[in-house]
């Protein structure tokens, strides 16, 4: 069993992202792609300072990926002088977000980035199942699961902070389940927002997260 210690969702217009970073860090984050900026804001919002040294894994999924950065790189390579600006190439590598986040989250041990292949798709059931297994093994003390999307029209971020131990006021406990039951939610990008609404709306005690094509990855959330 593990605990849901925080839920965080954020929707930002493109021009609001730098301001949100400044208000989180007290300074701008230089040379960081949009997805990296979202990762820093969300991780620091979910984890109180005292938790940031604990062994942590970050599992994050994205539908947009580094879309604008990829278009910039393609423009430079296909229509420019053949070799891009080094930073423009680096910005297309989502894995770099973890290295840029680690100075703010010293306990960050591992990160996985999972790009999605269909609009509306989400891997929450996979991320939470992996988190549940790793927390049960003691591999990490906490696992951050996120959906991060950054497009011209705006950014969206959804986060769940899961841990082996509850904080002072955990939101729910969760366990992996071989079979689902009702009520349930489908695996969708804004699952944390929906989970948050369920937590604020009694009366059912449990909620199941189902991935339609992966019944072995069902998760049960229970009120505390």
């Amino acid at each position, binding site marked *: 069993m593990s605990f849901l210690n925080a839920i965080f969702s954020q929707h930002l217009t493109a021009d609001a992202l730098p301001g949100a970073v400044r208000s989180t860090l007290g300074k701008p984050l230089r040379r960081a792609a949009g997805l990296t900026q979202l990762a820093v804001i969300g991780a620091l919002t979910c984890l109180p300072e005292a938790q940031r040294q604990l062994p942590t894994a970050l599992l994050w999924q994205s539908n947009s990926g580094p879309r604008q950065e990829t278009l910039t790189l393609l423009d430079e390579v296909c229509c420019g002088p053949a070799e891009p600006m080094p930073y423009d190439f680096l910005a297309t590598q989502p894995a770099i977000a973890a290295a840029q986040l680690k100075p703010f989250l010293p306990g960050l041990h591992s990160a996985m980035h999972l*790009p999605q292949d269909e609009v509306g798709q989400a891997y929450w059931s996979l991320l939470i199942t992996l988190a549940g297994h790793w927390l049960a093994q003691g591999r990490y003390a906490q696992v951050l699961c996120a959906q991060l999307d950054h497009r011209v029209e705006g950014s969206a971020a959804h986060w769940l902070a899961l841990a082996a131990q509850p904080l002072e006021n955990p939101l729910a406990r969760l366990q992996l389940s071989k079979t689902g039951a009702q009520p349930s939610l489908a695996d969708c990008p804004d699952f944390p927002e929906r989970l948050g609404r369920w937590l604020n709306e009694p009366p059912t005690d449990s909620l199941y997260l189902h991935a339609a094509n992966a019944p072995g990855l069902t998760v049960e959330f229970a009120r505390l």
Partner: protein
Amino acid sequence: MSRPVHITGSALNCACGDSPAKAAASMWAGTTRLGQKHLGDRAFPYYSLPLSETAWLPRAEQAIRSLTAQLGPIAPTTPLFIASSSFQMGWFEEQGQPFDLPPASASFSRQIAAWLGLDGPRYTFSNACISGFSALDAARSLIAAGSIDEAIVVGVELANASTLAGFAAMELLSRSACRPFDATRDGLVLGEAVAAVRLSSQPAGWRISGLRTGIDAYSTTGPDPQGGPIAELLRDCLDEAGLATEQIELIKLQAAGSPGTDLAEANALRQVFGQAMPPLLSLKPALGHTLGASGIAELAALLACLDSEHIPATGGFSRVDPEIALCPLVERSNAHISRALLNLVGFGGGLAALIMERRR
């Protein structure tokens, strides 16, 4: 619940062969097909797949379909884990402006699954050079815990100008050859590969007994030269496998010929293994650095080498670097290896290590 996870099959198409056995035979014979790619006025060595198709998408299909026959029959609902760092960049380049990127960034994975004849759960991993081991880590964790029983893990990296140009712009590429750990090493040589391994809870020849991923945040382009984070990860992996350093009989290095990363890896190995250094092998002089596919491609190639007891020499190495002070295998070996460690050091700070053990 935690059960052993075994490697029950593998498939590979790389510059040195279109199956693991052919690649192993080519590495043993030292017959490497090194080509060249041009970028503006500069030319770079490059390891290309020997495919008859030339247009990007048919070529990708030919490469992926070459894996299916090697893997044998697969239940269509088998969970699929895909690792790549550049996906279909070459296709976008070929289509030209205006670049029409699909809304979902890993849409190419749907196509890969269709070519493989799989319509079950499908997950994609993109963590630069450690993508393959990230995908393996997830698949193995689910099998070990009983969430799934079997998985196909695929690594895909196909030629495109953007990746080559990006590495060239950062001055990370050699203009001549891949020389792992060598005093004259001067950069990476990129390559393309597609590869797959089949994981199962059912017993088979090899078991994954340790797998850990980590982060080295020293810089976004290279690891801590002292090797501290790499050493920490290697110890974690050994701990998970329950093995002492003396029990590792072979290390498949990251060693891509990068001046900084090779040194960091060597320093880490010295910290962990001290004077009891196992034989060291780099496969990159035969396959090239295949980035997001490298974890799976090098695993498939190494399995074939170990199964045939034909461990190749590390090409490109001739002179010891006094700073590195380690020498990879320069003579071929027929050793029977029961425990091997595979190390990856990724662009962007990713680290990964895997230990596999032969079934007794």
